[in-house]
């Protein structure tokens, strides 16, 4: 064997050993999550998420806002929302029919309950009963609003902590 090659082989062997030892020692710390994308854990919140509670509906027909009772949206507790619907120029939208949908887009599941608008409270306010969120994270709550000839929908982003 060519004597000049021995140091090269030794160096290569030592380097390999270092990498293996280093990896084995670091495994308990980092875990194998970097080996496969599905092991990366839950995704972070989408950037620039609009989490405001008052927004213009998708086609601009209604200005819609929600408030929760209690004010801070609770985890695991059934509660009510009040939805306020008005025209972009500030006139309350009376006696519309409103459907409630929603879910966690990052988890691919819907709401754990089947909330409904049960009462028109007057002045463009609608009582939404049966709201519950059973996981922390990013939720979507969508309202489909039908008022006379006009139909539009709005999706709110809600961050449950």
């Amino acid at each position: 064997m060519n004597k000049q090659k021995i140091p090269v082989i030794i160096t290569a062997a030592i380097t390999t050993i270092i990498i293996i030892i280093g990896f084995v020692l670091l495994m308990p710390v980092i875990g194998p999550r970097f080996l496969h994308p599905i092991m990366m854990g839950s995704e972070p919140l989408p950037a620039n998420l609009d989490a405001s509670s008052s927004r213009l509906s998708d086609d601009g027909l209604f200005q819609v806002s929600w408030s929760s009772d209690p004010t801070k949206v609770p985890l695991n507790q059934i509660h009510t929302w009040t939805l306020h619907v008005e025209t972009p120029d500030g006139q309350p939208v009376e006696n519309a029919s409103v459907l409630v949908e929603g879910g966690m887009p990052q988890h691919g599941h819907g709401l754990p309950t089947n909330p409904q608008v049960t009462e028109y409270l007057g002045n463009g306010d609608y009582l939404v009963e049966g709201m519950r969120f059973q996981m922390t994270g990013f939720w979507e709550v969508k309202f489909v609003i039908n008022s006379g000839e006009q139909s539009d929908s709005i999706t709110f982003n809600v961050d449950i902590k």
Partner: protein
Amino acid sequence: MKLKSILLLGIVLLAVVVSLWMILQQPRWTEEEIITLRNLWIGSLPALPPDPSNVFADDPQSALLGQKLFFDTRFSSSNQVSCATCHKPELMFTDGLPLSIGVGTTDRKSMTIIGTAYSPWQFWDGRKDSQWAQALAPLESVVEHGGTRMQYAHLIANHYQEEYEAIFGPLPDFSDPVRFPAIAGPVDDPDAQAAWEGMTSTDRDLVTQVFVNMGKAIAAYERLILPAPSRFDRYVEALLKNDEQTMKSAMTSDEVAGLKLFIGRADCIQCHNGPLLTNNDFHNTGVPTRAGLPLDNGRAMGVMKVLNDEFNCLSQWSDAEEMDCSELRFVVSEGEQLEAAFKPSTLRNIAETAPYMHAGQFATLEEVLRHYNHPPLSPAGHNELEPLGLTNREMAQIIAFLNTLSGGVDAPPELLKAPLNN
């Protein structure tokens, strides 16, 4: 050559030191994580929620009667089974068995009673929507207490008349054996069922009212059984006060590492969240069917049962107004997500309540963690879990953390045994 060797040795040593330092270092918590930890802390448990379906829920006399009934084995077909048979105070109100045994063998593991006053749904499949409605089901199950509501009404008249009347008012006169046979009820036993159907509907209602009140008394007792703070709670309390000394004494570095995984990469808090470490919802986690048992489709069947339950929140036996029954009125009653979905157990005292899952499929927490790490296909519906890729060491750390959730029961000691004058 020599210089190179020294350099290489140096690099190896540095790698070793850095690795050890990273392993031994206690992780720091981010602001976000501290919010999460505070939500899991027992200090975040709200005041006991009212039970509008049970006007006797907070009556101390009712709770005392309930405690007596809870431990009284006369309320069974064999004279040997009480609620405490499967909900033993010394085993955190469970029984340590994979499948509970009353007068026969059930097809589910008994769940703890600790903290169930906070849950809108009872049983693994949520087929009952109050503690009192839950308490009545085993009494008429052919494999649990095995008795009938008529038999129980006679027992109340014979042994508890005074206490009963002090709470619920006059007890009907059940002494006429033609109108009120010894054994009758809407149960599986054909003779008992025939006797029940032979009674007038007015008489049946008199009996059912007594039966319902028994449930409401038992629920008044069970409401008082709450979880006590554990080492984990001491740790979080210290963390919120920035008291590093107490933090170190409350939890070891392995337990803290397990906690970090629990709220982080292992994603346990999706379902085990809030101060009781359960979201009281229903999830399919692909738990295998127990050998010898038929396929259990969990919530899919449970939701149908609760909607049709004679004792649900909207029933004539409930004291609630319609507006108090939001959980039932807005329940999700169909969809694939209900298939083989079960309620996540509270993780408080979880290390003391083996075996695990709805039919005791896993004997140890190690088996549970291995299941979550490599989730199999579900026997029905869709398994919500994803592989976690945890190492053995990480799984051991999570189990170490789960052990810090053992704090026992927060209730006066006299509530944890049969009352003396039973």
